[in-house]
């Protein structure tokens, strides 16, 4: 775990500024310690490199039109470094921006030919992008502040008596259902973390039957779930279904003493 501290570079009238241990720090005010989790949330709050740059500019009360490229680039790189240290998934976009900043910085250091002074500021493109992003960041906030359904706007729910409505319900073919399932599974498999197992449906169905029969109040005999007429397969399916339900903590098995009857009840 990395120890992360926040310090105010107070002489520069900056807002709290976080640094990783190991960076040259002069004073670390104890009260400004940011727990790593909080810092993670803070860093994850950025919607991308433009958002981070805007933050760095705004917190120094600077205008987008007059970005001190060197200072901003240095701070930007410190955040990138922090994100790497915290093993935040660092989007490639952040690195592209870093190289763009480095390029602008190097071009600004070069002596510029006097005659073409009124154009070609290397920062112009960056400023244009920042302005455009800022514009839509604001638009998104305005949009979010509009009254909207489910939040400020509530529709009326006026009851409709039992009219003889010939409700035309959509029809669905089994094929539609199958292809919907295939698609959702195909998609889920692209994102490796979700594994949709191909359990036999008989177990799933039996799980539902068991859940239907039990309640939290009553004890249902364990034996009742096994019907010898179903043969060995049926018994095994019931048994697996009960184990699966136990694993998912959906049911409880109760046995007062060894060899006493076992009862099944819903988790209360």
């Amino acid at each position: 775990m990395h120890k992360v501290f926040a310090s105010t570079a107070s002489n520069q009238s900056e807002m709290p500024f976080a640094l990783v241990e190991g960076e040259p720090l002069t004073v670390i005010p104890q009260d400004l310690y940011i727990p790593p989790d909080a810092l993670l949330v803070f860093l994850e709050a950025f919607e991308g490199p433009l958002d981070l740059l805007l933050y760095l500019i705004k917190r120094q009360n600077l205008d987008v039109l007059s970005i001190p490229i060197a200072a901003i680039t240095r701070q930007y790189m410190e955040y990138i470094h922090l994100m790497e240290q915290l093993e935040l998934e660092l989007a490639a976009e952040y690195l592209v921006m870093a190289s763009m900043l480095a390029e602008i910085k190097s071009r600004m250091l070069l002596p510029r030919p006097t005659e073409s002074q009124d154009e070609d500021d290397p920062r112009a493109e960056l400023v244009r992008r920042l302005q455009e992003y800022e514009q839509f960041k604001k638009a998104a906030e305005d949009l979010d502040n509009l009254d909207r359904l489910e939040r400020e706007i509530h529709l009326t729910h006026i009851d409709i008596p039992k009219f003889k409505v010939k409700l035309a319900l959509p029809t669905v073919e089994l094929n539609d259902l199958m292809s919907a399932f295939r698609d959702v599974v195909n998609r889920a498999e692209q994102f490796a973390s979700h594994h949709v197992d191909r359990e036999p449906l008989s177990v799933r169905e039996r799980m539902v039957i068991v859940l239907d029969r039990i309640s939290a109040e009553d004890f249902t005999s364990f034996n009742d779930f096994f019907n010898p007429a179903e043969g060995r397969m049926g018994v095994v399916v019931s048994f697996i279904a009960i184990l699966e339900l136990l694993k998912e903590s959906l049911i409880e098995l109760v046995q007062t003493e060894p060899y006493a009857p076992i009862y099944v009840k819903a988790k209360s």
Partner: protein
Amino acid sequence: MEIEKLKPILEALFSASDKPLSVNQLFDLFVGDIEQPTRDEIRKAIEELSEKYSANGFELKQVASGYRFQVRTDFETWVVRLWEQKPPRYSRALMETLALIAYRQPITRGEIEDIRGVSVSTNIIKTLLERDWVKSLGHKEVPGRPTLYGTTSGFLDYFNLKSLNELPTLAEIRDIDQFNPELVLFPEEKKEVASNH
């Protein structure tokens, strides 16, 4: 509280609520307010509102568990026409939700969202419950106690299945795809209509 001030508040509450509201429930809603109506004031306001809506397209009606606005039966002729139009089509989101409930039951809404990667709207669940294809099987004992959903016998009947076992397995669905590449289960334009619902 003045009756005239209370009346529009009650109108807002009756119209917004999807359940009837009793005098006691209404009284409780104001607890803690600086201006709090008495039960008698609420009763008086309801009386005046019933009078006010006596000639409207809907009325304030008393039922067992309280009062609610309801459409007047006199207008049934026109109201039913709202639904007699061509049958709507289910969205892709609804179909996928139904498929996951069928194949992965018992399953919670959160689990469906995890697999689909998108949030599932309350309306989808509501539609499936109303269609009687899906039912609540209880609650999962995790924080929030989410509802567990499963399919109903109505679902099996609709799709002409004797049991869930008759649903083709994923491997079988994929086999069908392989052997009948020309047999497209979900033609392109159908897909688009569905997602635009």
